[in-house]
């Protein structure tokens, strides 16, 4: 017999300290996050189709992996809580308890709770007590819900694992004490696989009392064959606790690949266990086959096809490639000038490779939109339940790819539109039946490519927009004048105007429009646009158009003195040649555009502080721009035509410059500024006002 490990020594075997390695911790958090997302998805599927065994199994695996990994990382409060959910699922899986909507609801809440636990896991040790309190409550309601469908064999399996840390001795006096003899023979490669068996043994203390541990060292080889990286030890553990064989088995599940485990119940104390214990011995070899969850834990990194890369590195790469494109163009230029045919040929070839590199580099930032879409299943589920409506969300085109930044920023506006649709678009079930519609409302979320843009549609089959009401309200709020003749579409798109959103529109479309101006603003900020179509009684369709990537803008290039500027193309209405009258003093900044009086901004005067009245000798042009209902002309020296350019933020040292929204580098390598038409008009106006104040 070897030396026995005493209690004090076991006490010192701490699980992996979560703060030890930020990287490992991050991987852990990401992994749990993925499982939580999976749980949510599967639960929602199960709600539709409770019979699906596959989904149930994957649900179980997710809970199981979360439990296992969080224990390994020392987040015991998470693993303890997850354990109960997992136990319940064991019963569901074995068919003891049916999966009911009530149970799904509680499981969803459990999932949220785990997410909360994860969020604060870094300072979890401070807040642990409160969390455990809520966890307990949920654990109890789990038992209640599952208990509602009575089953004879239930009690042992459902009992939540009591945190025995406080008083392990007390358990001796409990109803079903049980003694176990656990033999653990570690395989030689256990350390190579990165597993540390000691924390796992230590965890046993949560299930009961470890009375004695004997180290088995009989397989240690002779000194010349001894490899210090290998394990030659085994342990015999004399364990006491009111647990089932399964609980112990699960405790060692992470070791199941790397150790032979034998668990024997000792019949001396408890009258009933012998048959169970016997059965246990026979079953173990096949029960401890590795599950999928475990594979993820151990080999996930090597097997994964995905690579996590810091987005800054990609941005840097994209910058460099942009540089490469320009250098390539220069070489091409030289070859043409020098009339060197072979150089020109090589330059042409180089150019083609470069443009391919550029395309695939830009693709690195692209992410499928599906990740955002799945999030809304839950939103629709929760919201429709709250409102007592039946709503189904269908997503299409999940694989459509968008720039990561765009995806991150489109989530909120989409959420808003979907909430709007559930809340105000889809009618009450009774109303729907009355109108001869299917009682379940449908919201379709669809993404697809269209001519270099990405379109995302939110379509509902609800009540639709009442054009009359919107029109009335718009006149009432002085958004439009009663004499203005507007098409039906124009009227409907008024719901994005801020004036309409402040007040509720009555009846069927009540509240439709609250915050829609914010939605529009957010989408415009992404260089996108949004419009709405609707048919009363049939439904509403929101159509969001987004650029493939945030990094580029379709613009119109202009020149003012020596500097070039880019005007966003969608703000340009038309361009005209500007003719000054002979006696023009240059003091009047407005012109007659086909009968309309159009104020214009003399950019040279504004930007270069040229004195008033400095009249250019060369030809001048006016670019007519319009944004958010404001229309103005821009007086410029030259119109250089349409172009696509890459947007770069203004340097930190400039802070915010009124009238400019960014910087871009032109194909020639020149720097140009991107105009912010909206603030430019404001700037011109306030400038003029300040002269008279």
């Amino acid at each position, binding site marked *: 017999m070897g030396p026995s490990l005493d209690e004090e020594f076991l006490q010192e075997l701490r699980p992996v300290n979560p703060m030890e390695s930020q990287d490992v911790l991050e991987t852990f958090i990401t992994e749990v996050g993925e499982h939580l997302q999976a749980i949510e998805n599967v639960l929602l599927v199960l709600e539709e189709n409770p019979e699906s065994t596959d989904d149930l199994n994957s649900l179980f695996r997710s809970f199981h992996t979360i439990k296992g990994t969080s224990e390994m990382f020392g987040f015991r409060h998470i693993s303890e809580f997850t354990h109960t959910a997992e136990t319940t699922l064991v019963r569901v899986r074995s068919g003891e308890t049916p999966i009911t909507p009530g149970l799904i609801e509680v499981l969803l809440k459990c999932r949220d709770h785990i997410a909360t636990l994860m969020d604060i896991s870094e300072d979890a040790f401070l807040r642990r007590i409160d969390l455990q309190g809520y966890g307990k409550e949920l654990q109890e309601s789990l038992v209640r819900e599952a208990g509602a469908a009575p089953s004879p064999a239930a009690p042992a399996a459902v009992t939540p694992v009591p945190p025995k840390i406080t008083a392990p001795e007390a358990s001796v006096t409990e109803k079903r004490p049980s003694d176990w003899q656990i033999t653990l023979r570690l395989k030689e490669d256990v350390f190579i696989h990165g597993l540390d068996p000691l924390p796992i043994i230590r965890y046993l203390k949560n299930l009961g009392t470890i009375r004695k541990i004997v180290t088995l060292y009989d397989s240690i080889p002779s000194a010349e064959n001894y490899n210090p990286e290998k394990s030659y030890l085994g342990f015999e553990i004399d364990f006491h606790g009111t647990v089932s064989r399964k609980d112990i088995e699960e405790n060692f599940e992470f070791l199941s690949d790397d150790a032979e485990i034998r668990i024997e119940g000792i019949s001396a104390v408890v009258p009933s266990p012998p048959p169970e214990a016997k059965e246990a011995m026979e079953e173990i070899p096949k029960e401890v086959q590795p599950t999928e969850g475990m594979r993820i834990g151990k080999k996930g990194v090597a097997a994964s096809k995905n690579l996590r890369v810091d987005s800054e590195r990609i941005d840097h790469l994209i910058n460099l490639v942009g540089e490469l494109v320009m250098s390539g163009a220069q070489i091409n230029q030289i070859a043409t000038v020098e009339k060197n045919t072979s150089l020109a040929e090589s330059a042409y070839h180089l150019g083609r490779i470069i443009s391919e590199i550029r395309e695939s580099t830009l693709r690195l930032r692209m992410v499928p939109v599906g990740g955002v879409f799945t999030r809304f299943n839950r939103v629709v589920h929760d919201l429709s339940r709250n409102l007592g409506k039946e709503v189904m969300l269908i997503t299409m085109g999940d694989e459509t790819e968008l720039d990561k930044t765009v995806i991150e920023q489109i989530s909120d506006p989409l959420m808003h539109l979907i909430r709007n649709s559930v809340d105000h678009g889809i009618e009450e079930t009774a109303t729907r039946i009355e109108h001869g519609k299917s009682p379940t409302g449908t919201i379709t979320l669809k993404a697809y490519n269209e001519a270099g843009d990405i379109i995302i549609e939110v379509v509902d089959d609800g009540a639709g927009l009442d054009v009359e009401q919107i029109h009335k309200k718009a006149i009432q709020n002085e958004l439009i004048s009663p004499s203005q003749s507007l098409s039906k579409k124009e009227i409907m798109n008024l719901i994005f105007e801020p004036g309409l959103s402040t007040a509720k529109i009555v009846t069927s479309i009540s509240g439709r429009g609250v915050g829609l101006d914010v939605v529009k603003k957010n989408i415009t900020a992404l260089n996108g646009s949004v419009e709405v179509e609707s048919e009363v009684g049939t439904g509403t369709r929101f159509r969001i158009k987004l650029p493939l990537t945030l990094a580029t803008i379709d613009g119109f290039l202009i020149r003012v003195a020596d500097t070039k500027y880019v005007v966003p193309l969608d703000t340009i209405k038309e361009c005209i040649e500007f003719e000054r009258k002979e006696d023009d003093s240059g003091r009047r900044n407005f012109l007659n555009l086909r009968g309309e009086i159009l104020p214009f901004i003399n950019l040279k005067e504004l930007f270069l502080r040229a004195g008033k009245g400095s009249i250019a000798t060369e030809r001048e042009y006016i670019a007519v721009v319009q944004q958010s209902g404001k229309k103005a002309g821009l007086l410029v020296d030259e119109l250089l035509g349409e172009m696509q350019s890459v947007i770069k933020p203004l340097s930190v040292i400039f802070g915010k410059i009124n009238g400019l929204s960014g*910087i871009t580098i032109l194909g020639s390598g020149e720097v140009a500024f991107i105009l912010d038409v909206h603030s430019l008009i404001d700037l011109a106006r306030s*400038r003029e006002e300040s002269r008279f104040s």
Partner: protein
Amino acid sequence: MAEALEQNVTSIEKGEGEESKKRLRSIQKDQQVLTFELDQETFGVEILKVKELIEYSGMTKVPMVPDYIRGVINLRGSVVPVVDLLYLFSRRKSEITKKSCIVIVESLREGEAIYTGLLVDTVNEVIDVSARDIEPPPAFGTNLKTDFILGMAKVQEEIIILLNIEYLLSFDELSSLSQFDFHGLYEEAKKTE
């Protein structure tokens, strides 16, 4: 070094004389300095701050920013602002000559490295300066805001002003100037009218 400087900058802002002595001690180490000329005076910046030197070959003017920002240049795909040091020091614009150079320096802002170009008349050389040759700036006489100066280096018979790049480019104070000056514009407009 950067951290030490940052600390110093804060202490200078607090105006603690004792602290500024401390700052001096921290820069009193042997260092390599890039020297350049500005209106016939020699200045230096620690070589570790200097990323590269480029010949002046035109730049793009930025509308509606203060005059000490001469413009921006395209540095291999990044847009880098160029500061006219002479204007910052003496409200006179640097003359552009054949020898004009842009010294690209790195400074820290909120933990991130940012690049800024300094427009100088001509770049001289990189010299070794030993710690004992560095002295605190005099109370007056340099005609510069003392905060701009890290120390005075005596090299042979010449005195080189070592610039405090971190302070110089801590644009908190400077960028408040970048607000558009409506009143000034109005005055200007009145004059011309």
